[in-house]
């Protein structure tokens, strides 16, 4: 399989093709701009609402209660909480347990984690950044933050710190480059999983979550 002859002959063919006849036009930027954080939060919430996603704003000390409320309102009984630092510092795990939810959290092995993803009604994770332009969450996967926890359960509650709202995706990738971050994968999440493949009728929750709540920690 390490045969490079196909590659080499292809690249050679492409390189020997006549060069371009039309010069490309100028590339212009069409990024939005926002005067301040409040304007970004407003845009974030408005765009999220268009997707049926719900924004709950909470001061730091109320964040855990907001997560609890969101889950009980949606009727979740069991919940998988990703093992990230804010879950402990914000007191999320304790609050959920006190509210009588069945909680899977902490350091668990891959097999137990996968099982919990399928068994739980809800997944609670953080979102590293929010994008004001489109009401988007940037989920950066890595240690403690698996991909399936925000995908498999029908409900996804994401905790986002207000200071991590960025104007647009360009700012996100600039930030990641500046931080030297090299995640194996990241997903931009905008609202619940959606399809309109049957009879052009929009349905939420076809493969991923049908409900998305963002708790914005201020």
């Amino acid at each position, binding site marked *: 399989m390490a045969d490079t002859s196909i*590659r080499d002959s*292809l690249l050679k063919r*492409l390189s020997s093709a006549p060069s371009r006849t039309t010069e490309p036009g100028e590339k212009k930027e*069409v990024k939005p701009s926002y005067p301040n954080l409040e304007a970004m939060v407003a845009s974030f919430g408005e765009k999220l609402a268009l997707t049926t996603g719900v924004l709950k704003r909470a001061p730091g000390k109320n964040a855990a209660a907001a997560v609890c409320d969101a889950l009980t309102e949606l009727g979740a009984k069991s919940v998988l909480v990703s093992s990230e630092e804010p879950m402990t510092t914000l007191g999320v795990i304790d609050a959920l347990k006190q509210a009588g939810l069945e909680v899977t959290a902490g350091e668990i092995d891959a097999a137990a984690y996968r099982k919990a993803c399928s068994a739980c009604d809800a997944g609670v994770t953080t979102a590293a950044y929010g994008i004001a332009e489109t009401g988007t969450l940037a989920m950066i996967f890595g240690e403690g933050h698996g991909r399936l926890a925000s995908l498999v359960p029908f409900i996804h509650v994401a905790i986002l710190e207000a200071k991590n709202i960025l104007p647009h995706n360009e700012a996100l990738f600039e930030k990641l480059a500046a931080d030297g971050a090299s995640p194996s994968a990241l997903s931009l999440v905008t609202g619940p999983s*959606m*399809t309109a*493949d049957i009879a*052009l009728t929009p349905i939420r929750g076809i493969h991923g979550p049908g409900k998305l709540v963002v708790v914005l920690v201020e």
Partner: protein
Amino acid sequence: MKIETERFVEKAREGLANESQREVLARLPVLFKGLRDYAFSTLPDARAALDTGAAIRLDAVARLPELLKQFEENVTKNGVTVLWASDYADAKEIVLKLAKERNVKTVTKGKSMLSDEMGLNEALIASGIDTFETDLGEFIVQQAKRPPFHIVGPAVNMPVDEIADLFVDVMGVERTTDLNELNMQARRFLREKFLSAEMGITGVNMAVAETGTMVLVENEGNIRYSTSAPKTHVAIMGIEKVVPTMTDALHMLRLLTRSCTGQAISSYVSFINGPKNEDDLDGPEEVFLIIVDGGRSKIYADPEFREVLQCIKCGSCLNSCPVWTKVGGYAYGWVYSGPIGAVLNPLLLGQDRTKDLYFATSLCGTCRSVCPAGIDHPKLFLKLRERRARGDKTFGGKKPPITERLTMSTWAWGLGKDSRYRLGSRLFRLAVRPFVRGGKIKTLPGPGRGFTEVRDLPEPPGKTFRDRWRDILGAKSDG
């Protein structure tokens, strides 16, 4: 996938006669155009955004060999194994080999037009590997054994009743026509497949040369599943998918989702750099990328057709096309339909067997006006027609039949001089008069037969335009 491009006329007639399809086609363009136009109106300058899209794609295609090398270098650095395939057969062989070496029993697949081109599912299934399309629309057409009706909504034309019956057959579920429940039946059925599959196969929407990142765009979450749950992720892409920088990719993303479904962004956009890092809780242990030529380098070598490689497969040219929105997607007889199908199918399959596709266009240019990638479809239709008339063999063309050539050269000769034109039009009117039935000419014999097979001509009026013009001028000068 079965190639039925020769049956365009027949299939178009079937489409026109299909009442439920007509109902869908009456709604779809209005809906998609409204959503698209609104989504573009939210950009600070929509025209500049489209022009920039065209510039990015033109630049990317122009620098293709250099960008492919750069992308390969970076994606390899990120831990992805890159494999090259010169044609569909090569690519299928590579996938099958990877699957067999890993003893793969179940594959979940994300939507990929390229995989439809090469008939990947059929190949995997023939080798005993359970292969499931997981985009809901693709899942439905795979199970119903149909071609995609639309690039973005492959099954939008199917009546709910048919889907309900199909799900009973395929999943053994209780029959329902409740839309929410139908969707949930698919969710439950495919969920098991996602979690048991050993391999996930996806396409690639954009390959970012600068960073070695694969960008995958979707709404359902099936691609996130296929790139997260199985141990092995295999991505396949055509050579044209590369873009120079992340900034370019993010701009194209704004245009792609707006053009596709009228969304400012889709529900999920995944940026895949490579296999899971050691500390990652989940994600594939190995990622392969198969870069497929599949006829693209031949298109690239032809400066007149190269721009078709700028296509980002958004489907907006279909939604706006006066032909596609009447005859529907099946008429085009292969993977691609609508204006882009009328160019790509001939270039990938051969001009001769796809002749009706590039003639069945009104040249109105709506496709060009909505294209976010700067493709001038009408120009390409005309180029294909011209190549055919010349009997150019580059893309599997053949000289037109002798009758057609004679008709055309006589036509050209007749139009070459005023006196010949006058005489010709007089003779033509006399010659066709016996074939008028009820004010229309429905069939002509001889060289006119092919022309009138799919067109009606109006009865020639009593006087020619020139006669009337002369009469009017005469009357004026008399007065």
